[in-house]
């Protein structure tokens, strides 16, 4: 089961985004590799600082420069390398072909403009609609994302919307120009659990309805399990495991993935007497250890892990792991 619905839409190849700071070079994204097929939902999973958001911003070419810079790799969108496009052509893609939904809709919406103006701007710029046509389309979009009384709501400002409603507006904006790909960066993290469920279901329904591919960036393993076809687990700027969602959850082949899955309490299983955390602290990207970045926290580490970085290697069909010990993890679920 690949979940890949159609042709390859996006290929991220060995992406490297570094930040040049006083403390040294922070390799926020250091060799990230993944594909997105048309219409499918791919998850980027990892904890804070693993590079998942920076890799999405790199696709949009929204990395603040300086201090950040994309120093290597390719981002092929429908065969074209976005990193080599002139700024003007990139502007045509941003918001039109590829749209983005951010975590905190309050900070990503302009507080001084009405919701209507913010929705129509993209329609006028990208789809060359006139003001009246754009306003009508904006009202339709609000209805589409479940905001009733859309004519009146268009005249309101972001502060007059609740957190869940603002995120609906963000979704409407993202879908307004019929993009092929939506990058959703922690789209429901700031929301309550019942609202989170509403928003995620809405995103899934709309992505199916319009055949939009989605990249969901999250730290929530539950969200991934429900909504993603394929999963990329990230740690310290790298994809360390990649595969179909079911395989990743039932047969993880990287100690970090295994640790993450074991450390969360689950509502559907009997209560454990003790949780099994991952030892140690998250990595400091400015001072990574030599070899595998996860080695200081790893229970399976061997000598080789201390000096040789494990590449992302196939362990089964469509399932890759960046771990020297991946083979010995083949049947670890006691």
């Amino acid at each position, binding site marked *: 089961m690949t979940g890949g619905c159609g042709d390859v839409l996006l290929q991220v190849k060995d992406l490297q985004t570094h930040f040049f700071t006083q403390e040294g070079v922070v390799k926020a994204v250091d060799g990230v590799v993944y594909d997105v097929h048309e219409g499918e939902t791919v998850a980027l999973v990892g*904890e*804070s600082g693993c590079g998942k958001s920076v890799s999405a911003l790199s696709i949009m070419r929204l990395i603040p420069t300086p201090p950040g810079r994309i120093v290597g790799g390719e981002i092929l969108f429908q065969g074209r390398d976005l990193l080599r496009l002139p700024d003007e052509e990139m502007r045509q893609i941003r918001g039109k072909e590829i749209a983005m939904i951010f975590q905190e809709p309050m900070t990503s919406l302009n507080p001084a403009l009405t919701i209507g103006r913010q929705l129509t701007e993209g329609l006028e710029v990208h789809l060359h609609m006139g003001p009246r046509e754009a306003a009508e389309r904006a009202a339709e979009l609000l209805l589409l994302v479940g905001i009733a009384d859309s004519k009146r709501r268009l005249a309101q400002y972001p502060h007059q919307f*609740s957190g*869940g*409603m603002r995120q609906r507006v963000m979704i409407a904006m993202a879908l307004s120009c019929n993009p092929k790909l939506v990058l959703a960066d922690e789209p429901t993290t700031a929301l*309550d*659990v*019942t*609202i*989170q*469920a*509403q928003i*995620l*279901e809405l995103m899934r329904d709309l992505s199916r309805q319009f055949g939009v591919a989605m990249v969901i960036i999250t*730290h*929530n*393993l*539950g*969200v*991934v*399990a*429900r909504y993603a076809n394929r999963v990329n687990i990230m740690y310290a700027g790298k994809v360390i495991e990649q595969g179909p*969602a*079911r395989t990743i*959850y*039932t047969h993880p082949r990287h100690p970090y993935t295994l*640790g*993450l*899955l074991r*450390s*969360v*309490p*689950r*509502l*559907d299983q009997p*209560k*454990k007497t*003790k*949780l*099994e*955390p*991952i*030892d140690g*602290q*998250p990595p400091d990207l400015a001072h990574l250890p030599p070899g595998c970045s996860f080695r200081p*926290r790893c229970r399976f580490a061997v000598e080789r892990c201390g000096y040789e970085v494990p590449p992302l290697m196939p362990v089964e069909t469509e399932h890759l792991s960046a771990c020297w010990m991946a083979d010995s993890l083949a049947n670890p679920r006691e």
Partner: protein
Amino acid sequence: MGMAGRETVAGTQERSRNTENILLEVRHLAKYFPVISGVLFQRTVGIIKAVDDISFFIRKGETLGLVGESGSGKTTTGRCILQLERPTGGEVLFDGQDLARLTEADLRRVRRRLQVIFQDPYSSLNPRMTIGQIIGEPLMVHGIVHGKGEYRERIHELLGVVGLNPAMTDRYPHELSGGQRQRVGIARALSLEPTFIVCDEPVSALDVSIQAQIINLLEDLQARFGLTYLFIAHDLSVVRHISDRVAVMYLGKIVEVADRRELYERPLHPYTKALLAAVPIPDPGVEAKRERVILLGEIPSPLNPPSGCVFHPRCPIAVPECSRTVPELKEVSPNHWVACIRAEGYGTQ
């Protein structure tokens, strides 16, 4: 909140518990915030009922989980217990003493025994103080240690208790990771040897791999020092793991209280059921088979709460009666309280 309702809640709880083991009891607690408008001629234009007539108790050595979404009043409840907010009404009985009636001076003496761990270890530690000063400050304020040697020894001991290296004494908060900072917050809370700790979302700002470390630490400390916790959180999986009993809040009201197992296996209130259904399970196989009931609408404004049962506008099983009567919290089976006229067993009491 009629008087008749008050008697029933407190009365029911009175009958079915072992009074000797109660450390903390909250009776008819209410906290209203006035909404002020105008700059020069200020006037109250409304009242927000953040906490509206809630009653519950916590036994010695147990953990009561308090769950609810933002705006449900769970944090205000914790702050009212600690008297960081003075309640508008009701009692907070700690070891039989009503904290709500104590003067500030008397409170200071009791406060040693009630401590708090905050959500955000980034904003709750003073960035200009060293870790040693942060943990040691309460020791100085309360005059617990005498002499520099004893002071330093105690700080090192506390760091050890929470799993930090004593060498961290002279470091500053920004040099620590989120998990380490939360350990500092816990060490500070422990410094006065409290019996009761309000844990207000203590792990929700932390990474998944670190959350489990802190939860295990809190459990170890509880066993070691016989602590009693009020564990406030929105993550139902975490609350299930750590709690002995769980209370569910919605818009200033407690809608259900039960033993942990009972609440998760046999939830009675439609809101509790919806909350549990909304939690995604980290297993694609399970999720594919799971039927999902999505709660419609959003939590209403506490400035203008719905009439009758505050949950009725979003409730999938509401009847006309629900918009008229405020349902009392009733014990429908031993140690299982629910406030819903549609709940199984509610009418037969």
